[in-house]
C-alpha cells in the first residue's frame, strides 16, 4: 500500500467535489495513484504531473491500478475508438461551465461500448460530459456488469451530463441483470442529466437507462437528482428508464422527467419521488409477486 497526502486536494476550483475538496489522503495498492489527462498532453509523458498529462483517457486507464484517480483536466475532449474498461477506477472530470462538465467524451464505434464496468471493485465516473454517438452504435455508452462470470459490479455516477442522439441505437446506461454474464450490483447516480438530443422523430435514441430482465437485475439502484430529459423528440423506446422485467431494489429521489420522459419500474421494490416538471411523463410499475 502507498499513502499519498494531497494537502490542497486535487486542486481544482470547479468540478466534482473529489477534485475540489482539501486536504485529501489517498491510500492505494500502487504508489502512483493520481493520473492527469488532457488532450494537449502526450501519452509519452508519465502522466503523474498535471503540467505533463497524458493525452488520452485510454492511455491513463492502461497504466492505472485499481483504486487510482484519473483526473481529466478542464476542457479535455476525447473520441474513443475502442471499449474502455474503467473497472475499479475513479474517473473524474475537472471544471464546470454553465452547470455542465467541461470534459467531453465521444464514442466513435459502430458496435462497441464506450465505458465498461466489470469486476466487483467500486468504480466512479464523476463530472464528465458524454456526447451523443459519433456514428450509429448498437452498444450502450456505459455498461455495468458484463463479463462471462456471474458476479456483481458496482458503480457511482455523479455530476455527469449524458447526451443521446440520432446515432444512439442502444441505451445510454445498461444495467446488466443477466445471471449468466454478471449483474449490476450497487449503482448510485447523483446530480446527473441524461438527455435526448435527437432532432428528428425518425432518428431517436433508444433510452436513457435500461436493465435487462433475464435474471435478478441490479441489486440496488440509488438515484438522487437524476434528470431524464426527452428533449425535442424523445426516445424510441417507449420508456426512457426501463427496468424490463428485472427484480431488485430502487431508491429513487429527486427524479425529474422533463419533456415527457417515461419510466417503467418493472418488478422492482422500493420508492420513487418525481419532481414536478413539464411534459407528460408517466410511471408504469408492475406489481411484484412474493
Amino acid at each position, binding site marked *: *500500500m502507498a*499513502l499519498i497526502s494531497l494537502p490542497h*486536494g486535487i486542486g481544482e476550483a470547479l468540478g466534482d*467535489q*473529489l477534485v475540489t*475538496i*482539501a*486536504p*485529501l*489522503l*489517498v*491510500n*492505494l*495498492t500502487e504508489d502512483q495513484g493520481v493520473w492527469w489527462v488532457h488532450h494537449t498532453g502526450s501519452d509519452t509523458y508519465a502522466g503523474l504531473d498535471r503540467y505533463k498529462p497524458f493525452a488520452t483517457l485510454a492511455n491513463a486507464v492502461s497504466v492505472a491500478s*485499481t*483504486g487510482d*484517480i484519473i483526473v481529466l483536466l478542464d476542457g479535455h475532449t476525447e473520441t474513443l475508438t475502442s471499449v474502455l474498461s474503467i473497472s475499479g477506477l*475513479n474517473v473524474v472530470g475537472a471544471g464546470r461551465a454553465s452547470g455542465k462538465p467541461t470534459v467531453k467524451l465521444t464514442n466513435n464505434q459502430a458496435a462497441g461500448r464506450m465505458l465498461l464496468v466489470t469486476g*466487483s*471493485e*467500486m468504480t*466512479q465516473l464523476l463530472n464528465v460530459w458524454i456526447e451523443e454517438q459519433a456514428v450509429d452504435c448498437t452498444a450502450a455508452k456505459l455498461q455495468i456488469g458484463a463479463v462471462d462470470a456471474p458476479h*456483481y459490479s*458496482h458503480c*457511482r455516477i455523479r455530476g455527469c451530463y449524458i447526451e443521446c442522439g440520432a446515432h444512439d441505437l442502444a441505451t445510454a446506461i445498461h444495467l446488466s441483470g443477466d445471471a449468466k454474464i454478471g449483474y449490476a*450490483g*450497487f449503482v448510485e447516480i447523483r446530480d446527473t442529466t441524461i438527455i435526448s438530443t435527437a432532432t428528428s422523430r425518425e432518428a431517436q435514441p433508444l433510452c436513457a437507462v435500461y436493465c435487462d430482465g433475464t435474471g435478478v437485475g441490479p*441489486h*440496488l439502484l*440509488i438515484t438522487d437528482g437524476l434528470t431524464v430529459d426527452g428533449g425535442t423528440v424523445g426516445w424510441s423506446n417507449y420508456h426512457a428508464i426501463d427496468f424490463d422485467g428485472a427484480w431488485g*431494489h430502487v*431508491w429513487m*429521489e*429527486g427524479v425529474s422527467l422533463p419533456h415527457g420522459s417515461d419510466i417503467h*419500474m418493472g*418488478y*422492482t*421494490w*422500493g*420508492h*420513487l*419521488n*418525481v419532481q414536478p416538471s413539464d411534459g407528460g411523463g408517466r*410511471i408504469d*410499475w408492475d*406489481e*411484484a*409477486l*412474493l
Partner: protein
Amino acid sequence: MAIINWPHGIGEATGDKLATCSPLEMQLTAGVIYVHHTGSDLYEGTDRTAPVATLGQANLLTGVGDMIVMLSGHTEKIAAAVDLEGKILIGAGTSGGFPTVQLTNDQAAGSMLTVSSTYPSQILNVRLKEEAQDNSEPKIRVPVTAGAFDSYLRIRGCYIECGAHDLGPGLLLGGGEGDSGFVEIRETTFISTATSIAALPLCAIVCDSTTTLLGLIMDGVVFDNGPYGWYDALNTTRYALDLSARPIDRLHLERLTFSHGADANLGSHNAGYVNVYPSYGGGRIDWV
C-alpha cells in the same frame, strides 16, 4: 406486494427528505406503518392519526421494502433488538438541527438495530441516545448473518450519542458469520457524551475482525470527541473511527469532520481516499 401512490408524499414538513418529498410512489410488502408513543399497539398503524406505540410492533407489521415512519417527537426505550430486514426506518421532524425522534437502548447485552438480511435497509433522521445501562453490544450492527450478495445499509441525518454505558460501538460493521456489503453514511454525527474520563464509550464505528466490507461511503459525517472522547479497547490511541481490524475493499470518505480531537484509524489494508474538513482539536488519522 402493493404499489402505492402518495400524491403529497409522506407529508412531513421537516425531517429526512424521504418524509418531506412529494409525490411518492412505492412498491412494498405491506405499506407504511406510523409510530408514536402516544398511539397504541392495538392500532393497525397504517393511519398517521392512529399510530402504533412502539417500534417493535411496527416491525412485526412490516416486511421487505416497507417504511416505518416514527412521527415527530416519538421517544422509546428499546428492550429487544429490532431487525430491519430490508425496511426503511425514518424519523419525522427536526428541531435545532437534531432529529426529534429519540430512541434509547435499554438492554444489558443486545443491539438496538440490526440488519440481518440481504435486502437493503435505511435508518434516516433518528437520534439514538446513549445506552440506558451498561451494554457490550453495538447500537447498530450490520450484518448478523451472511447472504448471497451481503447487506446494504444507508444511514442519513442521524445523531448518535455514545455515553458511559456504551461498552460497545455506535456502529459495528460485521460481527457475524459473513461479510458486509456496502454501508453509506451521510450527514450524521457520532458524539461521545461521556462526562468522566473514567467511563468512556468504546468508539463511534468499529470494523469487526470477521468483516470484508466491499465499500464504505461517508459524506458529511461528524465524529465528535465531546469533553472526554472514546475508549477504543482495540487501540491505545482511542480512535473514534477504527477500521483497523479487517480489510475494506474501498473507502470513499468525503467531507468528514473530527471535532474535539477525535481520531481515526483507517486500517493499513483499506484502499481509498479521505477528505477531512478543518476543525478544532488535534484529531489525527492513522492509515499505515
